């Protein structure tokens, strides 16, 4: 479909460089944001969309400076509101590939409403959220993903609030694609980005991102060499949910208690067959939800990868189906005919 008289151009062969705007990123040295843009720029040549048909829309925050560094169309909008601009753009021009770039505060604090509605509608938008569990740009206030009790500039005695689990919130809103990765896991992140690009429908990616200046080490509990293998669970479609040293630990579903549990292969007669096979395409979001909540539970690893990936007609598809039907039914009428389509009378 092509609106506004634009014609679709053939997609040239690109390299990463084609997606660099040439503007020097304004992030602090060592910021996790660099790694994320690197992966996005690497992924873009392979999404099969012409550069001029890709749009990056962001809110406000360190992360939201992102569009300036991409050599595509872009809008750096208002705090929390990026999904609303993106939604209008996507509904009006469904042939464009539209990315929303956002931070944990931008997406989930002030932007929470647009976020959940984007997920609900299943608009074909890709939402990439940089989660550093802090407000970076405004220099260190509590965010809705900061831990309970977290001391920040606005919560010197600790945060009284519980954090959102972002994938769980997305799933609760009806999201059809939900994934998570980590800034320092470049290759993994690249894979997740490619999968989101390929997904038709709202795609949500949470990237755990270190902010060395205002929340340094927020993810060392996952990324520290010493704990990494036990702390991270890599979900792969069709594969058993194994983790730990030599993939010896696994996630089993205890049908009795209707709960997940961590088991060790070889112990208590546990074999690989007992381990839950990861299937992001289940139409019921429950198991994805359970996996998302694992990270909040003591004794469980934090899953990364794709929680859910289910194809449903998107809101933009639904909208254009109706537009096409209306056009087919009514045909092309002149303006005068349209205006006169009512009770009329003549004055001579």
């Amino acid at each position, binding site marked *: 479909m092509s*609106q506004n008289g634009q014609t679709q151009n053939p997609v040239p062969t690109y390299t990463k460089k084609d997606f660099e*705007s040439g503007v020097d990123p304004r992030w602090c040295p060592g910021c996790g944001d660099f790694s994320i843009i690197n992966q996005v720029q690497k992924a873009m040549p392979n999404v099969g969309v012409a550069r001029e048909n890709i749009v990056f829309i962001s809110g406000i925050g360190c992360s939201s400076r992102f569009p300036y560094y991409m050599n595509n169309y872009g809008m750096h909008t208002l705090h929390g509101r990026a999904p609303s601009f993106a939604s209008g753009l996507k509904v*009006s021009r469904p042939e464009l590939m539209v990315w929303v770039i956002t931070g944990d505060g931008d997406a989930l604090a002030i932007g929470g409403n647009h976020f959940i509605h984007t997920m609900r509608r299943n608009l074909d938008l890709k939402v990439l959220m940089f989660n550093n569990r802090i407000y970076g740009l405004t220099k260190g206030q509590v965010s809705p993903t900061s831990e309970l009790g977290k001391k920040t500039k606005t919560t010197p005695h600790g945060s009284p609030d519980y954090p959102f689990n972002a994938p769980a919130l997305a799933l609760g809103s009806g999201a059809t694609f939900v994934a998570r990765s980590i800034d320092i896991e470049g290759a993994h992140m690249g894979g997740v980005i490619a999968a989101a690009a390929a997904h038709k429908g709202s795609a949500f990616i949470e990237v755990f991102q270190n902010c060395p200046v205002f929340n340094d080490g927020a993810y060392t509990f996952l990324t520290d060499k010493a704990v990494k293998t036990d702390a991270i669970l890599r979900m792969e479609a069709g594969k058993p949910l194994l983790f730990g040293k030599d993939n010896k630990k696994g996630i089993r579903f205890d049908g009795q208690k209707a709960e997940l549990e961590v088991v060790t292969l070889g112990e208590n007669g546990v074999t690989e067959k007992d381990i839950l096979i990861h299937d992001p395409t289940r139409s019921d979001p429950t198991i994805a939800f359970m996996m998302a909540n694992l990270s909040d539970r003591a004794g469980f690893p934090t899953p990364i990868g794709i929680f859910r990936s289910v194809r449903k007609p998107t809101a933009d598809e639904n*909208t254009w189906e109706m537009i096409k039907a209306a056009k087919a039914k009514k045909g092309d009428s002149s303006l005068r005919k349209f205006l006169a389509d009512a009770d009329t*009378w003549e004055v001579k």
Partner: protein
Amino acid sequence: MQPNTGKTRPVEKVEGVTIRFVGDSGDGMQLVGSEFTKASAIAGNDLATFPDFPAEIRAPTGSLAGVSGYQVNFGSRDIFTPGDQPDVLVAMNPAALKTNLQDLRPGGILITNSGAYTEGNLEKAGYKSNPLDDDALKKNYKVVSVDMDKLTQAALAGSGLSNKDVARCRNYFALGMMYWLYSRPPEPQLENIRAKFKKKPEIAEANVKVFQAGHAFGETTELFVSQYTVPAAKLAPGTYRNVTGNGAAALAIAATAKLTGRQVFLGSYPITPATEILQDSSYFKDMGVVTYQAEDEIAGIGSAIGASFGGSLGVTTTSGPGLALKSEMLGLAVIAELPLVVINVQRGGPSTGMPTKTEQSDLYIALFGRHGEAPLPVIAARSPADCFYAVMEGFKIATKWMTPVIVLTDGYLGFGSEPFRIPEEGELKPYLVKYQTTVNDPAGYMPYKRDDKLIRPWAIPGTPGLEHRIGGLEKDSMSGMVSYDGMNHEKMVKTRAQKIRNVIEDVPDVEVDGEPTGDLLLLSWGGTYGSVRGAAARLRAQGKKVGHVHLRWLNPLPKNLGAVLKSFKKVLVPEVNDGQLANYLRMSFPGLDPMQFNRINGKAIKISELTAKVNEILG
């Protein structure tokens, strides 16, 4: 003398008349009113109507809160408003009488359904005794008290319809009487009824019968002293339809899509009284209109700006509280310099205020309601049909000047209706909405490189080689990149302001209604047009040297306005607010200190009140 109609009563020719139909929400008064309006229109009268339905939520039958009304003013001369005071009040039950009688002109005709004055209904209306028995009533008005219940039942005796269905026909009895009273040919109405109830022929026939019974009743009863005719008005020839202001705004949205060949994208959130614009527009998919009901007002305007970034003509519709919520976004549209139309249907404020009542109190927020220096064009519609042209103009300005435009209407215009002459084929001119498709500078595409009018180019996604980024941070005056340079900022603030001042080239001079000089100038804007024009005409007829200027453009103000204001000894600004235009004029024309006439009671200004005020001033 009137032609003899063969009846016993004389036929009086009148220039104009105002009728109000009121009854319970279930009584079908909106239908009766609009059918009668149509008949008047076909008879060639000029007219204006205003519905007066209950605030919200369906109230219990017979209650005061459940009263629903419809007023029509029609005549053989220009009709400017739905009328100050009804000459005829058709009140279908005691509650309707109670809430409306005080508006009836002394000596006017009261037609009421005596069958509805049951004890229960009297109590619900708060009457201790039956008001129809009150002698004062008969002294002050021409009371035509008819048991429409019984007469309807009689007409339908043996029809086999349920009591409920029979009761539903009652409104056609009233309509039939009114047809007789105003000498309207009944045949078209009979056809109408048959067409309307095509799928239920037994209901159609019942309504036809009751309508005829009402008509016959008028003819035979002794209760009416005379019959009336209202000759045709001198309207411009053409095909007409009735439009409400909200309906006209929706038509303009579709017309703009057609005239430009561009998609119009309406992102909005329902709110009284603006909701119908979104509702109506959602039917216009085949015309190139895309509607999107967002999760809130902020997302509504956001989606429209996003669509504008993509090359569509973004528009959002709202009322007071919604406009307040859109403030931050409007600032973004100003700095991004993207076309956007905001249609704000004003209602009583502050806060939730009086959602179903009209007011003109959003002028301040339209002009000044953004943080930072964020000027934008503001225009206002003056009548229901004019909403069509005001919204069309909004789009033209927004796309030409790459700017958000606020179009103000109000509940009075939005709900009110009047005949709309449908423009002839070719009368509305298509216009070009241009996109930039080539690089405009040796250094690459410069999204903020302006033309001599200071307008920036519009390059949209999908255009290869013109990839660029814009945003809400202050930006370099050429490349659009973020700039924290103080002098660049000052330049950009001044440039944006100058661009909006340049819009003056599209602002027509105001024209004075009446003599170009005089004792007093009435200066109005927006929905008070009808009242003020009507008052000016009446005052001049009384020999007063009164002129009238009506403002479509609030920003920029017309070039000749200052000079025109100086040509009158006094300036009076009537507004349905506490003096917002008056203050804005003081600011805009230092030295000018106009007088004010302010009503803030949720209603349009009455011609009679305004006339009285002017007479008081002129002594």
